């Protein structure tokens, strides 16, 4: 790439980004450690704006492709649809938007100008290291990543098995970061190939983002010797296709998500008999429920509530694991403090045992450096500044936060990058890093829940267990476009709803009378309670003071765009110019083939169509205007149609005053299950009716 092909990047800001910062976050966004604006990107997907959705996602998440495959999606667990039926399938939607944007993202990769004249070394290239590298490159620093493995990605590349994360997916994220001009030194182990001091001298600041790359072991009798291995070396062998030697019966010790990766990888290496053993019971097991379910589908047996006591051997060969019955795992304060019944023991037969009971960092490279390690073997750090005990050495990710999710490490990487930027600009860091906890919208009140129709989550397909265990291939199918649009339209738009300008509101009660969900409370002025508001947009066009706006869209967008949509009117036209304001719910817009004379304005619901929007279409020269709504039965909101009918009637009256035939405006409805063809049908029929009325000459 030529040096003049460099740029500085303005982060993408979806509509309403500023006002959202002044209000409680949607629960999905608050739950995401990186505070991804889920509502915004799901709404963009529902509108077919996939690259814009991609921008929203990647504005805060540099490993968005990775997360679209492996994120534990706290957004879903906190989705307010959980109280109605099932959470929105946010991760699958993310995957869809990202896959749709592949060419776009590749085309927009650019070198970033190194304007700051300072350099930064980052040790480790996992989620936090990559995030910091991206942010710091965007700020204009020269960034060098040091990675001990031959490829970037940290645990994503060297430990997450490919059946969960295909490497080409990971590489899309890595290429985004590297293309900014980040220098990469792989096969470079700090402590061996260079000392930390060398790096701190070479760079203006250094970031330690090495994660937890060493497995903990148990220290039980019989542990040392052939047939017993640790999780991380095993997973590294899997990741780099080194085919670790396993026996015929593998026992995995541990019940966390890494233990699931180990057990499920062992199955995929051809071992039919894979068991797990953990201290916890079904409810306590720390692995995600879907991991447990999928492992069980793959014929992996989980032995609950047993604690490892000794590895039993016959000669060198492992015979099995002697285990003791667990009585409890947590004490009264919910702290980890397992108790055992020493009288109940058993033997779990196995010829291979893989220990997966947790990880730690390898901090040997910090010996004799200015970075202090505490008596428990952890790096000393200040969470308010992301600094270690050495002035220009910062820390990020699990090396200091302890085990967590990839997206949590991303969030921590952002903090470190900002901290380093402030430090290098000579500014103080304390108090400048953004709060990690955000206020969120309250749960949906029961009276609102009962007004919302149930709409089950669109399941995605998995490759059948007996087939998927035969390879390391990814086993989860993505959404089709139609499915993605349908799933996206399940979103209740939390946090994207109506806002009253209290300087304009004169408390007339109109919004309160209009709202189907009882969201407005009117005292000195109206306040629309976000926990009630469903963002349908019905209120805004009714407000006589134009005091209501919507967080998630511009209420004037339709009327401002109509002139351009309709374009110049040809005086010699033979077909009438029709403006169709289309409800696009339920993927109705997909694959439709409208006559050329029909100019469409997609709207998320006809609720938002204002009298002024319809008038504007006529003002712009349309011969006919169709408001096309979905069937009442499929509307995601309620009580919309009577209001929209009333608006249409009012506009017909106004048109009458101008001697414009009221028949030039109609509200049409169609079932949308069959995609867009029905839209095309009703629009074509309307066009014929308008043609009979004739072209407008004035």
């Amino acid at each position, binding site marked *: 790439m030529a040096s003049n092909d460099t740029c500085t990047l303005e982060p993408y800001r979806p509509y309403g980004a500023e006002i959202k910062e002044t209000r409680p976050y949607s629960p999905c966004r608050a739950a995401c450690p990186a505070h991804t604006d889920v509502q915004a990107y799901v709404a963009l997907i529902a509108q077919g704006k996939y690259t814009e959705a991609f921008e929203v996602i990647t504005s805060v998440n540099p490993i968005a492709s990775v997360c679209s495959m492996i994120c534990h999606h706290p957004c879903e667990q906190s989705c307010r649809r959980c109280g109605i039926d099932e959470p929105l399938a946010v991760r699958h939607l993310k995957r869809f938007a990202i896959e749709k944007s592949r060419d776009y993202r590749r085309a927009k990769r650019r070198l970033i100008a190194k304007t700051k004249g300072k350099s930064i070394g980052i040790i480790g290239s996992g989620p936090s290291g990559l995030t910091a590298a991206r942010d710091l490159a965007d700020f204009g620093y020269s960034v060098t990543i040091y990675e001990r493995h031959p490829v970037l990605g940290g645990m994503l590349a060297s430990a997450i098995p490919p059946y969960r994360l295909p490497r080409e997916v990971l590489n899309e994220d890595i290429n985004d970061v590297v293309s900014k001009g980040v220098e990469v030194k792989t096969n470079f182990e700090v402590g061996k190939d260079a000392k930390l001091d060398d790096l701190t001298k070479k760079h203006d600041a250094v970031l330690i983002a090495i994660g937890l790359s060493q497995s903990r072991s148990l220290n039980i009798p019989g542990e040392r010797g052939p047939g017993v291995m640790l999780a991380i070396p095993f997973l590294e062998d899997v990741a780099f296709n080194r085919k670790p030697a396993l026996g015929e019966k593998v026992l995995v010790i541990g019940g966390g998500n890494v233990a699931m990766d180990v057990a499920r990888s062992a199955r995929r290496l051809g071992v039919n008999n894979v068991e797990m053993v953990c201290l916890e019971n079904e409810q306590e097991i720390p692995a995600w429920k879907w991991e447990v379910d999928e492992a069980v589908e793959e014929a992996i047996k989980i032995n609950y509530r047993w604690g490892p006591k000794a590895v039993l051997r016959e000669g060198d060969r492992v015979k099995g694991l002697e285990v003791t019955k667990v009585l409890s795992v947590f004490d009264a304060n919910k702290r980890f403090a397992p108790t055992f019944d020493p009288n109940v023991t058993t033997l779990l037969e196995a010829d291979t045992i893989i220990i997966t009971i947790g990880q730690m960092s390898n901090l040997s490279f910090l010996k004799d450096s200015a970075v202090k390690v505490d008596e428990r073997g952890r790096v000393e750090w200040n969470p308010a500044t992301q600094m270690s005990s050495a002035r220009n050495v910062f820390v990020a990710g699990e090396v200091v936060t302890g085990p967590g999710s990839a997206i949590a490490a991303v969030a921590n990487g952002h903090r470190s990058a900002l901290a380093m930027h402030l430090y290098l600009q000579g500014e103080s860091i304390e108090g400048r890093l953004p709060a990690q906890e955000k206020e969120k919208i309250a749960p949906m009140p029961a009276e609102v829940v009962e007004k919302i129709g149930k709409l089950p989550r669109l399941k995605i397909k998995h490759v059948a267990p007996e087939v998927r265990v035969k390879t390391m291939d990814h086993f989860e199918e993505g959404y089709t476009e139609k499915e993605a649009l349908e799933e996206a339209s399940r979103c209740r738009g939390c946090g994207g709803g109506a806002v009253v300008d209290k*300087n*304009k509101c*004169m408390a*007339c*009660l*109109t919004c309160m*009378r209009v709202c189907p969900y009882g969201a407005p409370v009117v005292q000195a002025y109206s306040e629309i309670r976000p926990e009630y508001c469903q963002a349908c947009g019905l209120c805004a066009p009714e*407000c*006589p*003071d*134009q*005091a209501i706006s919507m967080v998630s869209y511009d209420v004037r967008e339709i009327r401002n765009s109509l002139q351009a949509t309709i374009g110049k009117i040809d005086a010699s036209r033979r077909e009438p110019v029709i403006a169709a304001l289309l409800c696009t719910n339920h993927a109705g817009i997909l694959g439709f083939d409208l006559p050329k004379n029909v100019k469409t304005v997609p709207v998320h619901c006809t609720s938002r169509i204002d*009298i*002024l929007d319809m*008038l*504007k279409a*006529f*003002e712009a020269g349309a011969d006919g205007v169709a408001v096309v709504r979905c069937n009442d039965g499929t509307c995601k909101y309620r009580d919309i149609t009577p209001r929209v009918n009333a608006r249409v009637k009012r506009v017909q009256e*106004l048109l009458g*005053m*101008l*001697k*414009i035939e009221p028949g030039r405006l109609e509200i049409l409805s169609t079932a949308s299950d069959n995609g867009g063809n029905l839209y095309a049908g009703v629009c074509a029929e309307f066009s014929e009716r308008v043609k009979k009325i004739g072209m407008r000459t*004035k």
Partner: protein
Amino acid sequence: MIVGSQKPIDEIWSMVKDFKKVLVFGCNTCVAICHAGGEKEAETIAALIRMKASQEGKQLTVDHLGVMRHCEPEYFEPVIDKVKSYDLVLSTACGVGVNFLSDRTGTVPVYPGINTSFYGAVEAPGVFKELCAGCGNCILHLTGGLCPIARCSKTLMNGPCGGTNKGKCEVSSEIDCVWYLIVERMKKLGTLDKLTEVQPPRNWSTSRDGGPRRISMEHIREFEEKEAAKARM
């Protein structure tokens, strides 16, 4: 509140057609509540004028604006320069607002976009009903809280008249006979006997007699004038 209704577009057109640059100026209090002249309606009327101009082949710039109230100078002062930059202001405020603004726009005329109708209440969404005539001498305590000045077609003080018909007025079967309502109401209140008292002829000097009315609160004026004098010194 003051209730009004929009003038037909043809009448508005006859007022505005000879101007080049027109501002439709909404008032966001009373007339907004009755969906006649708030900012929303001002924008709607502006669109209709533009469409009419296009039909008539006239070049006309028509914008819209709204402020909270036209009847207090503080509300429109911030935009008065903008208002004065038009050839014509079509105010969709009530007559009070049109008058009040007319005194303050220099050479720019202010015309009415709505007909100011009455003092009324929101009986139901979209229904506005006259309940007070602003006569300046309230006698509601004598009539069970229901006003014969505003609501009796004859403004009778000793009703009902012979035209009452099953609770309706002889003027129209759509109009309630307020004297019928007064009787029913006072029965309910247990004060019907008060109606046997004959009300003397009414003193109308507080109403449309003696020219336009003005109320000046002396204690406030005195204070304000002192403050103004201080400011001049």
